């Protein structure tokens, strides 16, 4: 008598009739078929970014903020600078959603105007930094040798200059306005970006595909545009997401020491500075809204930058 297990074993392994099997031709086409759509670098990065909850929270907040910065002032029936002393220090209500400030101005309207200024300053400053940084860092890293040496020494000298002190100095002399603030923020701000671009270019220019491109006789400008930059884009974008909040902070800081955007404009820093005295008397909302939006915007950019860093540079994740 065979034991139960043995019967099962012989049945499965040996006693299967031959007619149960059939010959199947290997399909050469299907063998090579990719079963899933292939993802480009950016699609892959985007998929990783979506998984990061904090980064998505930051991204959604920034999108909403941008929309509100555009349409917010239109939604409100009040003018940005309409002063109305009888309405001084109204707490948040149906009429004034965020309350009113020391001159009876509507904080809701002013907050979105402030968003315009802050985002504008942040984006434009970052854009200029990126442009100069890519040109300087790209040339320095690609040319190498003497050119690189001279360009890097200049960067090292500029890097040693205290950023905010130079900004303050320029604004004192040029006088604060939207244009001069952006000029002052970018005059030494691009140095960090140039360093990063140079580091990337130094690395990428030694890869085989660049050599291949060169051996085809591709022009230098085309190699930089088509081979180097797209591959250096990850760190550049991350650096840019981190440049924007530092520009927004700098603008708020400058408003705070009296060198910010002047009167007809309402930036968050100006609003926070104006309402310093108000919190001691209990009118918390005048400070709360600008303070909340400065902090949360910087928070959103910071977590988005962290998320992008993880998403764009998978090598870093261990």
């Amino acid at each position, binding site marked *: 008598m065979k034991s139960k297990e043995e019967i099962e074993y012989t049945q499965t392994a040996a006693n299967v009739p031959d007619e149960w099997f059939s010959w199947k031709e290997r399909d050469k086409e299907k063998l090579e078929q990719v079963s899933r759509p292939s993802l480009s670098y950016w699609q892959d990065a985007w998929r990783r970014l979506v998984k990061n909850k904090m980064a998505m929270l930051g991204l959604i907040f920034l999108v909403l903020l941008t929309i509100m910065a555009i349409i917010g002032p239109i939604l409100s029936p009040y003018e940005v600078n309409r002063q109305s002393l009888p309405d001084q220090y109204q707490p948040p209500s149906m009429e004034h959603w965020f309350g009113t400030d020391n001159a009876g101005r509507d904080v809701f309207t002013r907050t979105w105007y402030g968003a315009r200024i802050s985002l504008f300053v942040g984006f434009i400053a970052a854009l200029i930094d990126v442009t100069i940084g890519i040109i300087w860092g790209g040339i320095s890293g690609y040319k190498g040798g003497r050119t690189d040496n001279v360009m890097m020494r200049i960067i090292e*000298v500029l890097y040693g200059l205290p950023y905010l002190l130079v900004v303050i100095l320029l604004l004192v002399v040029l006088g604060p306005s939207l244009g001069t603030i952006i000029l002052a923020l970018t005059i030494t701000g691009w140095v960090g970006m140039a360093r990063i671009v140079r580091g990337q270019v130094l690395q990428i220019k030694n890869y085989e595909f660049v050599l291949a491109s060169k051996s085809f006789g591709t022009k230098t400008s085309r190699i930089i545009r088509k081979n180097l930059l797209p591959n250096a884009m990850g760190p550049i974008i991350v650096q840019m997401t981190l440049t924007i909040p530092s520009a927004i902070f700098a603008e708020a800081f400058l408003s705070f020491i009296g060198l910010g955007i002047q009167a007809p404009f309402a930036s968050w820093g100006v609003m926070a500075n104006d309402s310093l005295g108000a*919190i001691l008397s209990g009118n*918390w909302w005048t400070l709360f809204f600008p*303070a909340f939006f400065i902090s949360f915007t910087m928070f959103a950019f910071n977590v988005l930058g*962290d998320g992008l860093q993880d998403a764009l540079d998978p090598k870093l994740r*261990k």
Partner: protein
Amino acid sequence: MKHMLKYILKRLLIMIITLWVIITLTFILMINIPGSPFNSDQSSNATVQANLEAHYNLDQPYYIQYLLYIKSIVTFDFGPSIKQPNQTVNDLLSRGFPISFELGIITIAVAVVSGILVGIIAALRHNGFLDYLTMGIAVLGISIPNFILATLLIQQLAVNLEIFPTATWRSPAHMVLPVLALATGPMAIIARLTRSTMLEVLTQDYIKMARAKGLSPWKVIFKHALRNALMPVVTIMGTLFAGILTGTFVIEQIFAIPGMGRYFVESINQRDYPVIMGTTVFYSAFLIIMLFIVDIVYGILDPRIKMHQKGGK
């Protein structure tokens, strides 16, 4: 040793050029201030004006003015104030700087010690509750500007709960809020940096070796891991000094601390140009020298840096 000397000399040269750039920049800005800086203002009286003209040698050609300006800065003479007669920038510096320096040193000590500790704890509890909690707070700490944190602290801890005094600089209790407001940002940056490098270091073979030898976890972390994990923290010290220094401008303003930062902001609001220029040069020189020291310390701590220098050429 030879490499080290070469490295120090190279850094020294860059430091001197940076100093020269900032001095030249202030000079160029000074002679370009819209409408002469000295006679356009009603508040500057004849004596002050005469002193200023003598001090800046305005009758001389530019290149002589420039050389004299460099000479006065090298001899640590920053000139008189326009708005406060009989006051020189040196007077303001000697009165305000010690207080600001004290505030800065306490802030750095608090930020470095607590930042490193928090970073270690987060790394040891990697992906645990404490890790997420501390790193969440750290991102917030980086995001909230120090002047907003300062007003929040005053409102909550000084006005509502009345635990700490709101302003001035007299006793240790007066120091708590300003230091807290100023140290939170740098602390968060240090904590994040320590955490990430610590995580990297902890996976390395020599740490496994130290563990395998049977060393206590305490010893492994503080004697073996931390040493290498702290290298990146040293590199950002220069930027942190700059951040804390500019932070003192607003913090001293908000907490009514009679330090240099407050005089500086006042001089900006009153457009007291010699004070602004003098203080900027002084502060910049201070930071540039700090950056130099940090670079040298880093060079001494990390022997690899010499090989980089060599390999780079």
